[in-house]
């Protein structure tokens, strides 16, 4: 038998494609946060407005409300971080500490107009209309809607001080207040 050396070679080769592009893998960490809707009013430059003597001390208007110059208080750096905010004012007339119903010809109330500007187009204003006995002292008003997030100095001006019927003011200490509110505009709330 003539045997010959033989070689049977079966090569099973799994060759990767030469220079095969290998895909990348990505993992994702989503990051989520929120910012609440807020409004902040700056601290008023003066939290107390002292008008001093309210009545004229001499002349033809003696005893009646004096000419009181406008008073301005600023609330600096006030802001709302959302669209659609407005400034509202609640003004309460100055009334005498003595709540006794005054006699005819006298009044125990001083009305005025409170105007807030610097927030939206136009102003927010409220004019008090207290009676001479001090009843019905509070008036409210809301300004236009600010359509964007806003940061601004809001100026509050108190002006046009009058007594009901321009009657003589009873003596004593008088006090009132103005509350400024900055918040979401309420549909139909503009004055």
């Amino acid at each position: 038998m003539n045997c010959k050396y033989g070689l049977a070679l079966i090569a099973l080769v799994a060759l990767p494609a030469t220079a095969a592009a290998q895909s990348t893998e990505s993992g994702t960490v989503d990051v989520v946060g929120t910012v609440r809707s807020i409004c902040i009013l700056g601290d008023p430059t003066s939290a107390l407005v002292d008008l001093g003597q309210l009545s004229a001390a001499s002349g033809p208007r003696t005893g009646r409300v004096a000419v009181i110059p406008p008073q301005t208080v600023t609330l600096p750096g006030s802001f709302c971080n959302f669209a659609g905010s407005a400034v509202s004012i609640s003004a309460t007339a100055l009334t005498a500490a003595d709540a006794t119903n005054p006699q005819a010809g006298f009044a125990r109330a001083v009305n005025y107009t409170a105007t807030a500007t610097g927030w939206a187009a136009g102003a927010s204003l409220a004019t008090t209309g207290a009676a001479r006995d001090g009843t019905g002292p509070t008036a409210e008003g809301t300004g236009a809607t600010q359509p964007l997030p806003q940061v601004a100095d809001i100026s509050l001006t108190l002006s046009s001080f009058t007594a009901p019927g321009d009657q003589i003011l009873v003596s004593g200490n008088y006090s009132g207040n103005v509350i400024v509110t900055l918040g979401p505009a309420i549909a139909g709330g503009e004055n």
Partner: protein
Amino acid sequence: MRKLIILSAPLALLAAPAMAQTAVDGTVDINGSVAGRCMFIVPNKTISLGEISLASNGKLDVSKVNGRSETLTGWCNNTTAAMTVTATQLTNATTAPTGFDNRVDYTATAVTGSTSANDSSVTAGAGSASSVGLFSGDIVVTLSNASTPNNGLMVAGTYNGNVVVTLTPTVTVGG
């Protein structure tokens, strides 16, 4: 005198001297390969920051962002595998007027073992690649250096961003 001389012959037939025979081998070679590959086992997580503005002044509360982390899990089987991080800033869709910000930037750092890669969202695109090699395990993603472009007031609403960690096996030649 006659003598008997017997010449004995072997009765057995001896096998002929062994003939030289050649062994024959057949060989089956078996080869295979494993492609360089990376894979995420846990590919998605969410970091919920909650409220990110300060109640006192409406600006970014960086403490709500810095140090927050989540953990992905994955592996690469290639010694030359690389990892990159792409951080995308948190944004809110509302336009920010003057004085406000609607964007929060941060740095995201991904760490697995002793290897880390990071990226700042201030500039678009991925950060530098780091060689991660063979590994299998956690990839911890941590946020830091939170800021807003103008240190302004934060516009109200929802803010979304993300961190993409990319694992890349390198290209190999041959089996």
